[in-house]
């Protein structure tokens, strides 16, 4: 909820993730659960037309989010709340309601990824997602969504995701160590931030 006020959504996401994963480790005694049936296996391993099914989910979610943001009243309220929260408050848009809704949508997406991962690996555990938060935040920032919030688009987030996924894949294929991969992802974020903020400013001046 802090993300809907003056808290940074990235900080809220990281802190919330740590709290939830710590709680899950404590509650589950740090043990993994193993699937004994094949129910839902298609969510993890299906390849329609040779493409992993998660890519279809990604494209469908991106298209749906774009349509909602551009064509619905809720989407316009989300955009206005980010760009001009004072005006949004003046016309009676509830920050709590909209904030809850977007965090619930983000949580459902993250939970769905957990379900797909479980279906793919046939086991569910808390550990194994350490790289995911780094990659996700890098993808969002590379996509050009403002760290302070209020600016960004779904298409740009998708473009940032493609950049980070490509970079990660190449580094894994080349056998780079996790440390080197983190270093290079950080450098990529820096390069994109510099290229998209300093260069246009210089052009304008």
């Amino acid at each position, binding site marked *: 909820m802090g993300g809907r006020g003056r808290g940074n959504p990235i900080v809220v996401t990281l802190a919330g993730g740590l709290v939830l994963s710590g709680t899950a480790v404590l509650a589950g005694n740090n043990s993994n659960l193993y699937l004994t049936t094949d129910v839902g296996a298609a969510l993890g391993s299906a390849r329609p037309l040779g493409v992993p099914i998660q890519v279809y989910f990604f494209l469908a979610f991106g298209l749906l989010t774009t349509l909602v943001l551009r064509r619905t009243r809720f989407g316009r309220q989300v955009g206005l709340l980010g760009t001009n929260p004072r005006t949004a408050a003046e016309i009676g848009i509830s920050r709590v309601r909209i904030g809850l809704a977007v965090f619930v949508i983000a949580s459902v997406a993250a939970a769905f990824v957990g379900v797909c991962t479980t279906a793919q690996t046939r086991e569910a555990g808390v550990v194994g997602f350490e790289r995911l938060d780094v990659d996700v935040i890098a993808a969002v920032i590379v996509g050009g969504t403002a760290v302070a919030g209020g600016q960004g688009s779904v298409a740009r987030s998708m473009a940032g995701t493609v950049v980070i996924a490509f970079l990660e894949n190449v580094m894994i*294929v080349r056998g780079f160590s996790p440390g080197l991969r983190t270093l290079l992802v950080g450098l990529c974020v820096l390069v994109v931030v510099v290229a998209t903020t300093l260069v246009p400013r210089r052009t304008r001046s």
Partner: protein
Amino acid sequence: MTFRLSRTLGVRLAILVALYAVFAVLAPGSRGAPGLYGVLIGLGFVGLVALGVGLTMIAANSTSRSGPWWRSGRCSGRRPRAKGSSRRC
């Protein structure tokens, strides 16, 4: 719905093409269908979560000075108090 390629999105796509070109030269294994398939595997998981986090960031404005989140709705703005009124909004 019309789609216009914005400048910022174009910069990202240009960086992606540049990255692909660099790694295609440095790592020939990343070229072609096998390399593309590896990208697609990682794309779905990271992408779904990234879209969700991106949505929360679009809706948020952490630089806003309109007050904490619990003061939502009409009273969250800094409206001037009416003369002689004890109410905040």
